[in-house]
């Protein structure tokens, strides 16, 4: 138990509830982010060519977007409720920085949803073709910009910057908006996340089109949709490789423990190995002397090279980050815990001195606090190994994401090749390809969720990197109330998911209707 008087099960249930809500919310988001651009491309071709089949294709995918949007909308707002109830210390601590991006997101989402989406759905034959097309593009851009703000806020939690902690209010205050907004972590996170959504949406479109081809229906709509989605998916795959690399470089610099967990790297060094895949020794703990892996397949030196384009680049492992590597500027975790305790205690002493009117003592304590503030979060930890996340979960999630992402590139390439040459229906193993595409729909969601597991589990124990562990962020409330709402959410979200899948599959089976012509 890291924070005195906090029930450890409260922390676990609060985390479980947040994870449940976030993961369900994320089921609906990626399709929305990506399919809108696919629809916008289709409608652009319709406006350019005047071909009514493109309009029919556009309207069919718009219908599926509408169902996904209707069921997914507002599921994210519950996360904000949880901040206020379960994570009040955190909400207060980050309030000014987290509040601004979330407020912008809320306003932007409201205006976008009430105007451009309405034109998209109600405006056919009521506004000009060009105005309708502009609304579709603006909806796509708006949805992605809406995602920008929450990802900026999340980026700040991974790499807090552009802020000043006010010891009188116990809040971080934004001193430089651009440092927060353009932080390299936030920029990479935004680009990596939205491109992952584009890939999910592309596979969604290809998978459903494959269903039509398997059934021998809607051949033209399916083939045209596959061309658009495979090109979009391929471009997005190239972008995600670049942004993934960018994110990994940022993680190496700002969250080295997360990188060590992603690679299952317990002992670091130069010429560090990039793990293609491996099985970590069951029950493996830092410093237990066991082999790191039962089996592994890696590329020697590649991790160092990818991070710094230099095989001699030093990459710390889990144990190095605990012990410290002074010559590389890495302090031992115990030293940071000691400095963190000084920061926490001097903050309390400052507050008492100020209350008692002892200005000299208050000034002295404030100086001591400021000197140690960058270690503040460590002051809540008991022992150095508390900074290790769940290595196995992070490692397997990361590798599942990467392997699936690589597999998707080949799927996009195959569909692009056959559909561009218009030979997909002559391909000998086309049925297998169609079934693979169908399978890729759930696989893409698994890859996308796994990415979030890497991001969020990998940064444990921190809710705000180095400044606040989850145990200090949680509200001191009864864990039974959190358990109750956990199960309520589990039921509500599962019902929504069932509704989504059943309505969606019914509409897919119906296919494009006459009204959509």
């Amino acid at each position, binding site marked *: 138990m890291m924070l005195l008087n906090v029930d450890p099960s409260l922390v676990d249930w609060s985390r479980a509830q947040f994870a449940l809500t976030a993961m369900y919310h994320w089921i609906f988001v990626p399709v929305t982010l990506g399919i809108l651009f696919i629809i916008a491309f289709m409608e652009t071709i319709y406006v350019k060519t005047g071909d009514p089949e493109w309009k029919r294709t556009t309207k069919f995918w718009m219908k599926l977007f509408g*169902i996904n949007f*209707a069921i997914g909308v507002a599921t994210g707002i519950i996360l904000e409720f949880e901040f206020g109830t379960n994570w009040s210390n955190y909400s*207060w601590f980050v309030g000014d920085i987290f509040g601004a991006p979330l407020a912008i997101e809320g306003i932007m989402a409201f205006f976008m949803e009430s105007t451009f989406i309405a034109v998209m759905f109600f405006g056919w034959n*009521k506004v000009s073709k060009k105005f309708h097309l502009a609304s579709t593009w603006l909806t796509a851009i708006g949805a992605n910009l809406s995602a920008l703000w929450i990802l900026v806020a999340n980026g700040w939690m991974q790499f807090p910057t552009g802020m000043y902690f006010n010891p009188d209010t116990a809040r971080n205050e934004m001193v430089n908006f651009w440092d927060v907004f353009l932080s390299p972590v936030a920029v990479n996170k935004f680009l990596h996340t939205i491109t992952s959504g584009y890939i999910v949406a592309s596979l969604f479109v290809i998978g459903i089109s494959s269903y039509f081809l398997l059934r021998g229906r809607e051949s033209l709509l399916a083939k045209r949709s596959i061309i658009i989605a495979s090109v979009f998916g391929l471009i997005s795959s190239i972008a995600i490789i670049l942004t993934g690399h960018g994110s990994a470089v940022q993680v190496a610099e700002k969250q080295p423990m997360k990188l060590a967990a992603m690679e299952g790297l317990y002992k670091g060094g130069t010429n560090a190995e990039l793990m293609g895949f491996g099985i970590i020794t069951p029950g493996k703990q830092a410093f237990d002397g066991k082999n790191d892996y039962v089996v592994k397949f890696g590329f020697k030196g590649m991790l160092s090279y990818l991070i710094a384009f230099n095989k001699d680049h030093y990459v710390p492992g889990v144990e190095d980050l605990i012990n410290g590597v002074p010559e590389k500027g890495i302090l031992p975790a115990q030293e940071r815990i000691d400095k963190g305790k000084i920061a926490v*205690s001097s*903050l309390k002493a400052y507050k008492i001195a100020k209350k008692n009117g002892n200005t000299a003592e208050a000034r002295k304590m404030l100086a001591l606090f400021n000197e140690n503030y960058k270690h503040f979060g460590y002051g809540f930890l008991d022992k150095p190994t508390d900074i290790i996340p769940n290595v196995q979960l992070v490692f397997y999630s990361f590798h599942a994401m990467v392997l699936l992402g690589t597999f998707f590139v080949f799927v996009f390439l195959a569909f692009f090749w056959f559909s561009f040459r218009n030979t997909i229906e002559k391909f000998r193993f086309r049925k297998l390809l169609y079934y693979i595409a169908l399978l890729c729909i759930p696989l893409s969601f698994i890859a996308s969720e796994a990415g979030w597991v890497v991001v969020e589990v990998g940064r444990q124990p921190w809710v705000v990197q180095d400044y606040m562990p989850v145990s200090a962020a949680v509200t001191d409330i009864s864990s039974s109330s959190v358990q109750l709402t956990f199960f309520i959410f589990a039921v*509500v979200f599962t019902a929504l998911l069932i509704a989504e899948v059943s309505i969606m599959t019914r509409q897919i089976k119906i296919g494009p209707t006459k009204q959509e012509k």
Partner: protein
Amino acid sequence: MKLIRNIFRFYVDGFKNMPAWGRTAWAIIVLKGVIIFILIKFLLFPNFLKKNFETDEERSDYVLEQLTKKADNYDVTER
């Protein structure tokens, strides 16, 4: 005024001519809205600091107290 009337009519016509799947989607949005904003927000998820404290100063003091609980075991005043 005419513009406002046209916009209003645009929305009314849109809702009137909505296909069956659209009506189902709206039914889900409304039901979900009731569950999220009434049941979840007001009954199960009050804002802890807003509910229990009246001023920002009280909230600050409470959070500071929570964050510095552990400092009781660590004395820095002799430094």
